[in-house]
């Protein structure tokens, strides 16, 4: 079919409007992505030209206990913060969904922490987690419980960071709240008429109706959970002490690439991260096709 002059004009206009993005896409996204692939096959220290070494970097990764440890740490953190975050933010949204007095104040209190710069909240929580004079341990002590050394204890360092992440999950709560308020009351009325109790209403009406929102949020949370960096960097230093328990994937990448200047190796790590996120998103999509209801 011959393109009419209108089509041609439209295409020209469309491309013109999209020009910034086309430039941005190629320069800041596609080129770096391909460059990262090339660098991952080289030894590259920026100051010296890259030397092609084939798949040595990837082989090295497989043998590298730090790689596996950082992957494990990150998976632990992502799983923990996503599930706990989901539970807490969903529960809060459910609690706030009724016409509570002071809704605005509650919403502010829960939402505000999610706006704070991670650097500031990391410093704050670092102080609160202090084994001797921190707020948390002295609070626990007054309840008769001896708190662990938190950030200094390899077993508790990740849970400590997860708790901090959950504190900042207020934005998810707002999303769920909005989603909940979109659920038509007619469905609830129908369920009540059928004699459904609270939990049945929850499981059969509420959750399916907001499942698209939950899905979207969970996917985004997982992706950002795998990128955790700042909290570990600030609270436990760049080595992920103690015993590398908080050596997250991106922290390891940063160390290798920008401290040891092994950019080739770091690029290999970057690509592995990319593939992992891709696979996770695909898995989530497949799962969503079964669990998420997009009916009308």
């Amino acid at each position, binding site marked *: 079919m011959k393109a009419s002059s209108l089509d041609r004009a439209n295409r020209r206009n469309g491309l013109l409007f999209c020009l910034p993005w086309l430039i941005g896409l190629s320069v800041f996204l596609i080129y770096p992505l391909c460059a990262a692939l090339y660098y991952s096959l080289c*030894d590259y*220290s920026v100051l010296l030209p890259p*030397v092609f070494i084939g798949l040595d970097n990837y082989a090295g990764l497989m043998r590298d206990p730090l790689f596996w440890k950082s992957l494990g740490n990150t998976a632990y953190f992502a799983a923990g913060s996503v599930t706990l975050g989901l539970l807490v933010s969903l529960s809060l949204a459910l609690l706030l969904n009724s016409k509570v007095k002071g809704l605005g104040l509650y919403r502010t209190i829960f939402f505000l922490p999610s706006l704070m710069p991670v650097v500031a909240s990391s410093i704050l929580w670092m102080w609160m987690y202090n*084994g001797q004079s921190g707020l948390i341990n002295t609070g626990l002590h007054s309840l008769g419980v001896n708190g662990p050394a938190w950030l200094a204890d390899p077993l508790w360092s990740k849970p400590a960071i997860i708790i901090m992440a959950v504190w900042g999950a207020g934005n998810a709560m707002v999303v769920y709240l909005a989603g909940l308020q979109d659920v038509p009351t007619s469905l609830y009325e129908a369920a009540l008429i059928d004699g459904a109790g609270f939990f049945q209403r929850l499981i059969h009406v509420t959750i399916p109706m907001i499942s698209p929102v939950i899905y979207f949020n969970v996917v985004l949370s997982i992706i950002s959970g795998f990128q955790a960096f700042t909290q570990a960097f600030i609270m436990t230093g*760049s080595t992920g*002490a103690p015993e590398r328990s908080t050596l997250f994937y991106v922290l390891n990448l940063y160390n290798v690439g920008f401290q040891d*200047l092994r950019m080739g190796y770091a690029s290999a790590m970057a690509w592995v991260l990319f593939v992992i996120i891709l696979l996770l998103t695909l898995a989530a999509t497949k799962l969503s096709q079964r669990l998420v209801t997009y009916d009308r």
Partner: protein
Amino acid sequence: MKGPLRALSHRVSALALITAVASLVVTASSGCSTSRDKQAPRHLTYWEKWTGFEGEAMDAIVDDFNAKEAAHAKADPNYAPIEVEKVTITKIEQKLLIAIAGGNPPDLAGHYSFAVAAYADHGALTDLGPLLAKSGFDRNRYIEHYVQLGEHRGKTWALPLVPASTALVFNKRLFQEAGLDPDHPPTTIEEFDAYAEKLTKWEVTLPSGEKQIQSGYLPNVPAAQKRLLQAGFLPGEPSWWLTGWGDFFGGRLIDGPDTISTANPANIRAFEWVASYSNKLGVGVIKRFRSGFGNSSSPQSAFLSGKVAMVLQGVWIHNYIEKYAPGLRWGAAPFPYPADRPELAGTTHAEADVLMIPKGSAHPNEALAFMQYASTQAVLEKLCLGQQKFTPLVSVSDEFWRAHPNPYIRLFRDLGVSKNAVNIPKTGIWNEYNRELGNAVDLIQSLKQPPAQALAEVQEKMQAALDRDTKILALRQAQ
């Protein structure tokens, strides 16, 4: 028709506006050039890591140099003076390499000697050889051990500025209280261990409920009834040389340029000795005890507050004591050696703060001029006196000895000159090696892994890393 024409002009004007704003902002952000005439000062950025009194000592030197240059320019209008701007960069080990790699390095930088090998191998430094040759550099003025710290693979990459050495530093009052002679510190490791036991004090809760102070390791008293008040020695306090304990037992971390020797018997012996302290005191006890220590540069630091009686410390300890614990009666002596290895007497960790010229420095000749100035005897003595350390030069003026406030300065210098002065292995993978070793020592001290196993794992991993590096170096040279 007015439509398309107007549309075009709208679009163009909008585009022009955006471009104008953007370019204005871009130029503003990247700054404008400052040179006006040809006698404008040659500006040198110098990144240094020191803060506090050490930083001030260097500030004085920089001020002197700038004044000298200004005077020269005044006398000779055709001379463009060099103007040094010293910028204090904390955690320079994290920031310098990345600045050099980013193409935005300072003209001159002060770093630690153990970074030279890695930086040189990465191509981050300017070879000082040709520059020094032109300027009539006399290597013999320097103490051999310190000047070779700046050399790697046959080339000179950095010059030592302020040296350091480590020794056994102990609290004389605590010695006396424990019935030990403060004028006779331990000379062998075995003696040292015996002293440490006597210097360890606990508050014990007796069955009757009353509290009593007892010394020794008290293995028969259950942990719940004793609280550590004072430790004779803690290998982790301070934690700066945690990876270097092997040196005192004759173990080296590298055996030649191609072999990693972490797991050699002397090192294993050293770290078993380190682990023995965790055994004697108890890992939990040490953790709790240490959590009460303050910052190492504060009156609450372990040694300064009298909580630990003996430490391995560097020549700067005098100033810390002066500042934070002025009443402390302290002594210094060479760190003990194993009784069966008397040839190891006088072993010390001898590193130095060095000056290096990053690759891509905009003013290498000016940087060299400053380095030369800073390495003259008078200036170096002024700097080292201000930092309360000794100089890396062979010749020392009488005035320096007389004016020096550190009562043990001669001891520290003798240690630095001795044949048993050791330095951190000069290898490009030291950063990684140090991290791995630090992690291993962490595990050894927490008694989670026996030293032989932990060290063997590090050796395996680091040997692979070294082989990888050697292979890449060969590939690069073949290119």
